[in-house]
């Protein structure tokens, strides 16, 4: 395992062809990186950040894709800290649309560090400029424990076989921090 990798925005010349995840279940993640990630990034549909061996290296070893999203709660959501917003059923969010680490580097802890960057990036670089109350992820069942370790809450769904929804209430997160950490 390398001592460190580098996370940067995807570039048109990046080599996505050798990316492997090792399981058929992960084929959509591999396919997205190869076929759509660059185009979506440059056309502002979805922003992808890649892991590489050095900042100028082009071989992609992992990636994270973020999009603007929303959570629509048909029963309405009651924000105890913003009562006037409770007349709406939809709240803005940032979604982790994709997160994948190359097969050879999985279970090495890179994903956890990418999530450290992601949570801070959303709070520090996006929240000050556009409302986004939640950070959400459609997790695979196999990734639920990973997201829980990163501080996400799993929606207590009755549909146990569905893709679990994981979320962080970003406002409550930042409100709970000592002022020195903000």
């Amino acid at each position, binding site marked *: 395992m390398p001592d460190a990798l580098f996370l940067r925005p995807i570039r048109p010349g990046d080599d996505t062809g050798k990316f492997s995840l090792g399981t058929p279940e992960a084929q959509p993640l591999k396919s997205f990186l190869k076929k759509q990630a660059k185009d979506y990034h440059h056309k502002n549909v979805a922003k992808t950040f890649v892991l590489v061996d050095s900042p100028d290296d082009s071989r992609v070893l992992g990636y994270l894709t973020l999009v603007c999203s929303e959570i629509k709660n048909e029963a309405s959501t009651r924000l105890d800290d913003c009562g006037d917003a409770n007349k709406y059923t939809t709240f803005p969010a940032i979604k982790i649309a*994709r997160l994948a680490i190359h097969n050879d580097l999985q279970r090495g802890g890179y994903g956890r*560090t990418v999530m450290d960057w992601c949570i801070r990036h959303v709070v520090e670089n996006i929240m000050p400029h556009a409302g986004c109350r939640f950070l959400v992820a459609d997790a695979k069942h196999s990734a639920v424990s990973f997201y829980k370790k990163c501080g996400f809450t799993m929606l207590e769904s009755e549909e146990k076989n569905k893709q679990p929804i994981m979320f962080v209430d970003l406002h409550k997160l930042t409100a709970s921090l000592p002022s020195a950490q903000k």
Partner: protein
Amino acid sequence: MSVKTSVFGGITISGNDAKAFDRQVTHGRPKQAARDSYARGKSLVDEFNRKGYATIKPKK
């Protein structure tokens, strides 16, 4: 009662799942793991904002 989601779209929650989400949001508190993750992310985002990339060392 259902959750509908698409990769690049929103998430729609209805029925009992919607009530569960409401309960979790209303009464939920931030997890210490999220606060820790946010704190660890500071140096990464500082570097990213300064250099255009962040150095990702594996979390042991």
